[in-house]
Structure formats: structure tokens, C-alpha cells
């Protein structure tokens, strides 16, 4: 252990602000120049359940959680019962011995007893403030700077007034002062501020919202569903500032149909949901495909089928998103792997929806959508809105044919209000004017038109990213949120074991980048890594390029891969 990295975890009863604490604590370290990866784990309960927040801190770029943890902060007895084994030998358990009478069962750890309840009672603060005192105590134990924590607390509470800020800061200070006195030696020599550029701390879903705002999204309908609930919160907080209409519909069916209506009227539109809500949207997805109305759909995956595990993670909806809806039409399906890609690909998704006039699905999951990552501010200079063949004139004087056959499959589009541009945006199979047709050649031509967009899209998109050693005999393959764990595992393999691997990240599943995938995989040993049981990307690769992965590493217990765990599993199949 050197003093440039640390793994910290806090656990407590639901309702004790564990998520808020995690966010504040993360920012305190980002302000001191560190990278963080932080993830909450919680059952689908509001009060009484066991919540944890784990924070990995490092002076180097990091992208995924690891085990074990160096410091475990227990705000309830359950944390000791459930999470004690996460502690590294020699690690520290920080808790208030007087608050709950649980004797830790391990002898290879250090106990740090801090009377958190007494400290906040002395300050006449409500008991919930123990979370602030625990953060202050942790900062002292880590040997970090209290001022950076205080600033992070101030940022978090400044909207609630000076008094609230002062109370929270004072609780943190009390915890800090106590540990400084009682345990003057910081853990492993301490972790001081480091040099680093100014970085953002944000979730994948935050980045998706920012990308959508930047792209000029004007309408969004969201029915609350984990793990895209935070999209709703984020958009709501900034909707007025950005002139966006956010509607909470009566169900996801309404949501997607409203979004299609808004899109037909000319507003860039989006819906966000999880697999269950997307199941309800499937009919609407087909409507957007048939009528060729642009639409962006965010599908934040969680384990299923049915209700599944509401607050856990999975990557098992890939095939579902690729095939959802009856009939033939082209849709884009893409899967960002980190907040940066969430931002840029969401921006691009709106351009693709407009230029291809078809739905674009963004696949994320609970891990990417709700964990916190650090990233440098996004470069927005090169981002240009492209609305494709949307006619901007207020009057069309020539004979307007909405669904005109074109080489690209995309035809000019008007919106209501444009004189002379009237047409029937028709869910029935239709001719070039949108008029219902059962005439065989007309039907075939219309199906061809929609499906031709596949080739148009394929010509526009790179579809993959290759990371690491491109001359390695063995290539890791993955998609979406496993990107972070794969890159960090590769880093461990390289630095600890001298194994330098390459990683093929598939970014677009539709259109599938067959040629590029084939080029990178043919003749190499392929290790497929996915957060599902069916190896869904693996089946796509087999389907499109007839390459079968040599080994698969799958996890489908509702949890994301830890980088160290993944590293070991890769070593096991090398």
C-alpha cells in the first residue's frame, strides 16, 4: 500500500444519507486532485434496509471499483455483520462502540472507536449528522485535509442556507478533531492532496442528461424507474434553465407516444427507462420506426426478467433492445462505457435520430448510470447539431413527398406549421406520400426504405474502440459499463504480471461493426466479458462474423465486476 490510493466504504441504515455522504466524500478527494470511482449498493427499500457506498481513491486514472477496502465505516451493526469481510487484513473498522453492541469477529484489523452519536449530541444536532462526523473522522484517519471536506460539504448544502452548511461542517470537524486526538497516526502514513487538473465527479446518467441538454433535447417523458430515476431528478433540476418540457406520464406507453408526438412536431425528444418500462414502450418504438420519427431512448439495464433486482446491475437487455418490436425497421443501438461516452454518444444519438429518422437506443445500466466517476470537463467546441433532412423553411412550394424513395433511405421531413408540407405520418404500411398501401411492390419498397438506413448508418459510424496492445495474441471483448473494469484489470495485468493485452470495445450493436470486429478478432484468442448469463455480445459476434469466443467471463449476480476480481478471472483463462 502506498499513500496515493485508498479504498473506503461506509454502511448504514437506509435513510441515513449514505448516498449523499458518498457524493460529498468523493468530491472532497476530487478537489484534492484525486480520481475516484464510487458506487452505492442498496436494496429496493426506503427505510431500514442496508445501504453502502464504496469509494476508490487514486492519484492515477481509475475506472472501476476494487476489493478489499482499507477503511470500513459502520453506522449500524449490519455493516459489521455484512461488510466486515470486505476489509483488507490490517484495515481499519471505524465505528461508535457505544451506539451498537457488536463485537467484530476479526482480529487482523484495527478498531477505531469514535463516539459519533455523542459528538453530534454535544453539538445539539440531529442524530443523522453522525454521517458528517463519520466523514470528518475518516478524513483525520486518512490524514487528509479537513478544509477540502468542508468545501465539499458547503457545495452540497449551500442551497439550503448558511446554517445548514455550518451545522454539517461542525459535525465533520468534531469527528475530525476527535480522531486527531485519539488516533494521531494516520492510516498507512496518510493521503495528502495531490496535483491534478480540475475534474468533474458525475454519474453516467448525469453525463447523458448533459449530452441531451447540449443536443437541444426539448421534450422528455419519464415514468419513475430505477436506475434512470436520477435522469429524472437531473432533468427536472435544470428543465427551466434549458427550456425543456419534462412530463411524468401515467405509464411508459404514454411516455414514448408523447415523445413521438413531440418529435413529429419538431422537438428533439427522449425517453428514459429500464427494461420493464421499455417492455411497455416496445409498441411505441415500432411506431417511431414505421413513421420515421426521430427518437432517443435510454434503457438503463437492471437484472430481470420482470421486476428482477430493482437496484442492482446487469447487461442482459442487449438482445431485447436489438429486436424489440414486430416487423422490419432499422434502429441504432449503442452502449457507452463511461461518463465521457455517455455525454458524447448521447449528443451523437440525437444527431443520428434526426439524420436517420429512426429510434436510437442508448443502453446503460445501474452501474454506469448511478456510480460516480471522475472525468475532465467535456470538450464541446466541436459538437454540431445536425437535424438531417428536416426542412426549416416555413413554407414548401414544391410538391412535397414525405416518404420519397432515396438512396440513403432517408427523405425530407416537414413539421406541422410548415405550409404546403402536410403529410400522413402513418403507422400503416404506406406509399411515398404516407398513403396506406397493400400493393406488393409498394410495400416492399417501403420496407426497403426503412432498412436501407442500416447501410447509411454503417457508413457513418466507426462502431468499435480498441484499447491497449493491438499486437497481443489475446484480445478481451466487451461492451458498455464493463469497460472500466476491463481497462483497470488490464492495467493490473500489465503492471503486476507483465501481461499486456488488447481490448475490443463494441460501442455500436446496431449497425453492428462486422468488418472492424472481424479485423480485430480473426486469428486471435478471444476472451469475452459480459454482465449477463447468455453472452449476448458473444452471440452477436458469432452471428455477424462467425467467430466464437475462446473463453467467456460472465457475471450475473446483480453486481458489477470489480477490477481486481476480473483481473484474477482473466488470469484464470489466459
Amino acid at each position, binding site marked *: 500500500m502506498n499513500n496515493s490510493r485508498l479504498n473506503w466504504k461506509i454502511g448504514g441504515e437506509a435513510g441515513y444519507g449514505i448516498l449523499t455522504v458518498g457524493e460529498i466524500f468523493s468530491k472532497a478527494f476530487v478537489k484534492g486532485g484525486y480520481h475516484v470511482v464510487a458506487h452505492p449498493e442498496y436494496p429496493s427499500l426506503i427505510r431500514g434496509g442496508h445501504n453502502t457506498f464504496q469509494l476508490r481513491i487514486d492519484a492515477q486514472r481509475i475506472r472501476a471499483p476494487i476489493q478489499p477496502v482499507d477503511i470500513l465505516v459502520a453506522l449500524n451493526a449490519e455493516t459489521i455483520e455484512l461488510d466486515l469481510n470486505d476489509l483488507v487484513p490490517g484495515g481499519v473498522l471505524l465505528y461508535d462502540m457505544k451506539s451498537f453492541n457488536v463485537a467484530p469477529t476479526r482480529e487482523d484489523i484495527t478498531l477505531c472507536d469514535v463516539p459519533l452519536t455523542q459528538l453530534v449530541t454535544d453539538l445539539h444536532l440531529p442524530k443523522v449528522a453522525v454521517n458528517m462526523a463519520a466523514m470528518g473522522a475518516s478524513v483525520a484517519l486518512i490524514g487528509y485535509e479537513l478544509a477540502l471536506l468542508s468545501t465539499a460539504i458547503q457545495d452540497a448544502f449551500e442551497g439550503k442556507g448558511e446554517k445548514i452548511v455550518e451545522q454539517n461542517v461542525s459535525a465533520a470537524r468534531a469527528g475530525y478533531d476527535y480522531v486527531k486526538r485519539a488516533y494521531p497516526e494516520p492510516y498507512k502514513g496518510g493521503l495528502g492532496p495531490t496535483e491534478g487538473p*480540475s*475534474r*468533474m465527479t*458525475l454519474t453516467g446518467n*448525469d453525463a447523458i442528461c*448533459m449530452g441531451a*441538454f*447540449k*443536443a*437541444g433535447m*426539448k*421534450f422528455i*417523458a419519464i415514468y419513475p424507474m430505477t436506475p434512470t430515476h436520477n435522469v429524472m431528478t437531473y432533468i427536472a433540476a435544470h*428543465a*427551466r434553465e*434549458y*427550456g*425543456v*418540457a419534462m*412530463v411524468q*406520464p*401515467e*405509464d411508459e*406507453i*404514454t411516455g414514448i*407516444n*408523447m*415523445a*413521438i*408526438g*413531440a*418529435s*413529429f*412536431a*419538431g*422537438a*428533439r425528444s427522449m425517453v428514459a427507462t429500464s427494461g420493464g418500462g421499455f417492455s411497455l414502450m416496445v*409498441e*411505441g418504438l415500432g*411506431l417511431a420506426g414505421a413513421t420515421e420519427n426521430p427518437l432517443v431512448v435510454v434503457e438503463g439495464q437492471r437484472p430481470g426478467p420482470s421486476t428482477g433486482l430493482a437496484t442492482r446491475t446487469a447487461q442482459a437487455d442487449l438482445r431485447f433492445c436489438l429486436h424489440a418490436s414486430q416487423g422490419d425497421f432499422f434502429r441504432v443501438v449503442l452502449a457507452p462505457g463511461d461518463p465521457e461516452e455517455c455525454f458524447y454518444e448521447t449528443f451523437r444519438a440525437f444527431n443520428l435520430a434526426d439524420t436517420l429518422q429512426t429510434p436510437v437506443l442508448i443502453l446503460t445500466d445501474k452501474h454506469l448510470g448511478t456510480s460516480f466517476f471522475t472525468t475532465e*470537463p*467535456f470538450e*464541446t467546441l466541436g459538437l454540431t*447539431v445536425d437535424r438531417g433532412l428536416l426542412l426549416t423553411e416555413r413554407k414548401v412550394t414544391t410538391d412535397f413527398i414525405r416518404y420519397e424513395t432515396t438512396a440513403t433511405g432517408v427523405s425530407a421531413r416537414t*413539421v*406541422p*406549421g*410548415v*405550409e*404546403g*408540407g*402536410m*403529410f*400522413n*405520418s*402513418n*403507422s*400503416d404500411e404506406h406509399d411515398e406520400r404516407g*398513403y*396506406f398501401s397493400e400493393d406488393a411492390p409498394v410495400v416492399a419498397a417501403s420496407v426497403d426504405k426503412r432498412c436501407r438506413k442500416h447501410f447509411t448508418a454503417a457508413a457513418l459510424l466507426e462502431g468499435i474502440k480498441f484499447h491497449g496492445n493491438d499486437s497481443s495474441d489475446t484480445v478481451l471483448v466487451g461492451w458498455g459499463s464493463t469497460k472500466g473494469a476491463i481497462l483497470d484489470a488490464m492495467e493490473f495485468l500489465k503492471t503486476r504480471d507483465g501481461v499486456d493485452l488488447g481490448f475490443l470495445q463494441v460501442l455500436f450493436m446496431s449497425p453492428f461493426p462486422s468488418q472492424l470486429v472481424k479485423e480485430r478478432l480473426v486469428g486471435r484468442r478471444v476472451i469475452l466479458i459480459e454482465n449477463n448469463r447468455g453472452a449476448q455480445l458473444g452471440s452477436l459476434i458469432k452471428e455477424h462474423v462467425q467467430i466464437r469466443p475462446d473463453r467467456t467471463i460472465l457475471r450475473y449476480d446483480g453486481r458489477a465486476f470489480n477490477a481486481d476480481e476480473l483481473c484474477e478471472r482473466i488470469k484464470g483463462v489466459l
Partner: protein
Amino acid sequence: MGDVHRYDVPGTWPTWCPGCGNFGIWNAMKNAYANMDLAPHNTAIVCGIGCSGNLSYWINTYVLHSLHGRSIPVAQGIKLANSDLTVIVHAGDGDTYGEGLAHLLHAARRNIDITVFVHDNQVYGLTTGQPSPTSFKGTKWKVAPEGVFASPVTPLPLAIIAGATFVGRGFSGENKHLIELMEKAILHNGFSLVDIGQPCITFNHVNTWKWWNDHVYKLDETGNDRFDYELALKKAQEAGDKIPVGVLYEVERPTFDDEYRSLNTETLAHTPIDDIDVDKLMARHL
């Protein structure tokens, strides 16, 4: 007053059965639009699926021929994106009171400024004659040989209770009356529902032209007070020997779209989006 034929789609004629009640609604609709001089390009009509929804082919405005039951959600999206448009739904009883009943009630409580015309023939016609949510209890059908077991949906009192600010009933055979009713519904600022009785001459052998003519009476000939909520609820439930047509209920209430309209000086659909600054958002994450 505008020209009725400006709403015709040249070279087309409806495929409804000769004698279908839809012709009366189609005709009344075009006359109402002409009387109001609705500009076709500023009018968005959303149709459902069924014989009523096929009207989308014979009306020259912007049209979105949507899904069975989903036309009300689509219409709300259009109105929110561009509140300058006149947004009208034409859907059937299966559409609106079966598959889409929840949408109707929620749109009513939002009081969004759209107008919903339900072509209520009390039957699924395009699928060759199954009972619909408004078919009478006990009526016999090929697929309900013992007679319909359930009582019919009562959409008009439901809509009033849900918060609709304009509720009426028309009859396709009373064309002049229907034209006036449609105009009032469209002019009303808020959510308007007009249930329009129409015979299905092919599959509904109960609610025939004769049946309708024998049962309807005009509310405005009885000195009815359409602003009286209690009375409206009572009148909306009349379903015996006499069925009222006309405006059952009307009230003014702030609309959902007005609340959203305050977000922007321009409509959402026309707000420039070329150069949106997200630096402020990024700064909040630093």
C-alpha cells in the same frame, strides 16, 4: 368561412361501408374546420386504429396515424412541443375506452388543450364485429353468443370526474348539430371530449340509425345549464330511453400546456438549439 374542400385529399374517397356513420362525422368535421377557417398546415390530427382511424387518409392536414389506443398520448406530445397548433384526436370507442382509457382520464386531469372526437359505434368493426367497451350488456355477438356480461364503460361521467373541462355528445345523423358541437369543442381552451354516436350498419344491429334517431334529444332545447357540474354528471349518465346530445359540461381551468408554455418564449419545436451552453452544468460537477 373557409372552403370545405380544402380539407379533401384529391383523388381519394373513404372506404367505409356505404351508409356508415363515419361519413356524417367526416362531413361534420370538414364543415367545422371550414367554419373555423382552420389552416390545414397549423392543424395536427392524430388518429387511432380502426374504421375511425382510417379517416386519416381523407383529411388534408398534418396527420399522425398512430397506434390503437395511443392517439391521446401522441396528441399531448404534439401540443406540448408546439402549442400554436390546433391538435385534434379522431379515435374509436375501442381505441379510447378500451386500450386507451387510462390515457383519456390522465389527459382530462391535465386539462391539456386538445380535442378528442370519439367515433363511438359500440363495436369493433374493422375486425369484423366484436363487442366494444361501450356495447350494451346482454347484446349478443359471434364472439359473445351468451351476450356481453359486463356493463358498458361510461366515458362521459368518467371524463367529467377526471377533470375534463369540456364534455359533449354528438350524433353522426344530426350533422348541423354535430358541426356546431365540434366547433365549440375545438374553441374550448382545455381538454375536450366529444363522444359521437355512429351506427355501424354492418356489424352493430342494435344501435342502428333508427335506434339512434329514436333515442337522442338535444340538450340545448331543454334549457340545460352546461356549467352546472352536478347536473352535467347526471345528464352524462342518462342512458335509458332518451340520450342527450350537445354540450354536457364546460368549465374554464388553467391548462397543462400553458404551464409548460411559460418555459420558453418560442414553442419548444421552434427554439434554436444550435449553440446550447452546458459549461454551467459542468461547473456544478467540479
